[in-house]
Structures are given as C-alpha cells and as structure tokens.
C-alpha cells in the first residue's frame, strides 16, 4: 500500500491534497502539527511525508530535526512544502529532505514529486 502523511496546519491544503492523492491510490494520514506528526511516527508509519514548513509551535524544520534526532526517518522520504526557499534554519538537514515543493503548487507538480518519491521507496 502506498502510504503518505500530510502535515499541515491549514485544513484546506490538507483536504485538497488528500483528495487528489487518494485518487492516485495513496492511503492518507492527515495531521495538523509537527508534534502530531512525531507522535504518529513513534506509533508506526512508513511512507512519504509532506511536511509544511510554516506551522505554529514546532515548525517543519524543527519537526524534521526531531525526526532525525529520534531516528524516525528510516523508511520515510520527507518532502518539504513551503512558500519560501530554505534559509539558515534548514542548516544541517541537507540530506534529510528528499524533495521540496514551493507553494502555490499545481496538481501536476504534487503528483510528479510524490510519484518519484514512491518509485524510490519500493524495490
């Protein structure tokens, strides 16, 4: 099964992305914060993670740093979703990010990025 977690505090982005990706055959987990993402990973999850950068509290880079430090990256490919290019706060995470999607993005951009990640997840 193709599994994908959408981490975004904005409901409409989670919802529209989820509808599109479900049609493409993905089993979707939606969470609204970095903390919820970490909890889900600790419980059990392997797949693609679409991680929003700008979230209140623990932001995307902070979440990714925690994932790395807690060894929660194994079996997962992280694609950052953001409106800005990476800055200093992403330093040290160079090899933790599989891909990067700038908002606003098209359906084609999203599906293309996710399909590439999915191809790399399965031998």
């Amino acid at each position, binding site marked *: 099964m193709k599994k994908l977690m959408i981490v975004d505090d904005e409901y409409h982005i989670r919802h529209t992305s989820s509808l599109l990706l479900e049609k493409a055959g993905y089993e979707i987990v939606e969470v609204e914060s970095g903390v919820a993402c970490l909890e889900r990973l600790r419980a059990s999850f392997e797949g693609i993670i679409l991680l929003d950068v700008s979230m209140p509290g623990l932001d995307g880079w902070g979440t990714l740093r925690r994932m790395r430090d807690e060894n929660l*990256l*194994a*079996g997962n*490919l992280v694609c*950052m979703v953001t409106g800005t*290019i*990476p800055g200093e706060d*992403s*330093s*040290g*995470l*160079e*090899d933790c*990010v*599989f*891909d*990067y999607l700038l908002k606003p993005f098209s359906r084609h951009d999203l599906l*293309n*990025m996710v399909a*590439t*990640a999915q*191809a*790399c*997840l*399965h*031998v």
Partner: protein
Amino acid sequence: MKLSSQQRPPKCLIVIGASTGGTRVLAQILDRLPLLESAVLIVQHMPKFINDSLVRTLGQHSRAPVRLARHNERTEEGVVYLAPSDVHCQLSTNSILKLVEGPRVNYVCPAIDVTMSSVSAPFPGQRLVGVLLTGMGKDGAQGLAHMKRLGALTIAQDRASCTVYGMPGEAVKLGCVDHELPPEGIARALTTVGLRMMPEPPPRTSAGLSVV
C-alpha cells in the same frame, strides 16, 4: 603496450552532484543521454534504504547501465555509477572507485565535495566534466571549483529549473561555473562533451572488406 578500454581511465569522466529534488532532475537528464564514452559518477544525497531502489529507478531512465558504486571498482565507459549512502566516494587516478568511511562533510556523507576534490589532473586526451544540480546547502561548490582548476568543464543547474538553488548558487558565487543550464541543456552539453558511443564497426575480412 596498448591498454584495453577496461584497463585505461575513461576517455571522459563526468561527476554529477545532487541533493534535494535531484532525483527528478537526474531522471530528466538520463532520459536524454545517449550511450557515452564516459564514466558517469553520481553523488545524490539520500537515505541508505533507498540506494537500491534509486539505482533501479534511474536505470529505467538510462540507456547506460546504472550500478551502485563498489569499493576498488574500476570505472568503465558507458556505465553510470551511483555513490552509496554513509560512505564517501572518491576516485583514484580518475578511474578507480574508493569507498571511504569518514565524518560528515557539509553535514552529509557522501559529500559531493569529497568526490569532486578527489579528481586528479586529466590523463592526456581525457575530458573531465563536473555538474552540480539542485540542493540545499553548499556541498559540491568547492569540489566543482577544484575540478575547474583541473580544466574540467563545469556546469550548474540554472536557478529557474532548480527546486533549491543552494548548491549551484554557491558554486556560481565562487566563480567556477562555465555554464548554468536547465536539465535538457545539461543533457545536450554532456552528449557533446561526453563523446557519444559509436557502434562497433563490422569485422573486416583478410581482403579488408567489411562483413555484413
């Protein structure tokens, strides 16, 4: 004594560094490349658990076979090598792959800087090409500058087509980039410089005639 193609260094050595978003760009470039008389070494930052699947994925886009680099393997023309995760990948005498354990450089292992900085002066007639694709941070910029000093053709992915312009942008700042190109332009440049592999000529008879 004439060395066989498997004993001498490749006529052309192409080193490609990539990070965030690089997989899609590599696929676009490989899609457009003919078989080349070049050994192509790719260093893509990635987690170890996707090493084999990335070899397979890139292989689906490449006319040349794609292999995970092995320690002490002699590079061959017409083959694409992918550096494995968690070890640095160096080149000895521009032809033999060395997988070396070591600390992270620029926060990553393998580091593109380590690979490109291990390239040595070209053998007579040998061509060198360094390519730096999309990626966060600055890995590869110093390595590309090293290759430029050796006379390599140096290419950076252009800002417009980059997912993240960090690594190519750092190389441009160092002034070591000959050309900034989108993926299709990079493929064209590699096809020109990398020496398109011609089919073997038909064997000749004792009378000097080709056997058809």
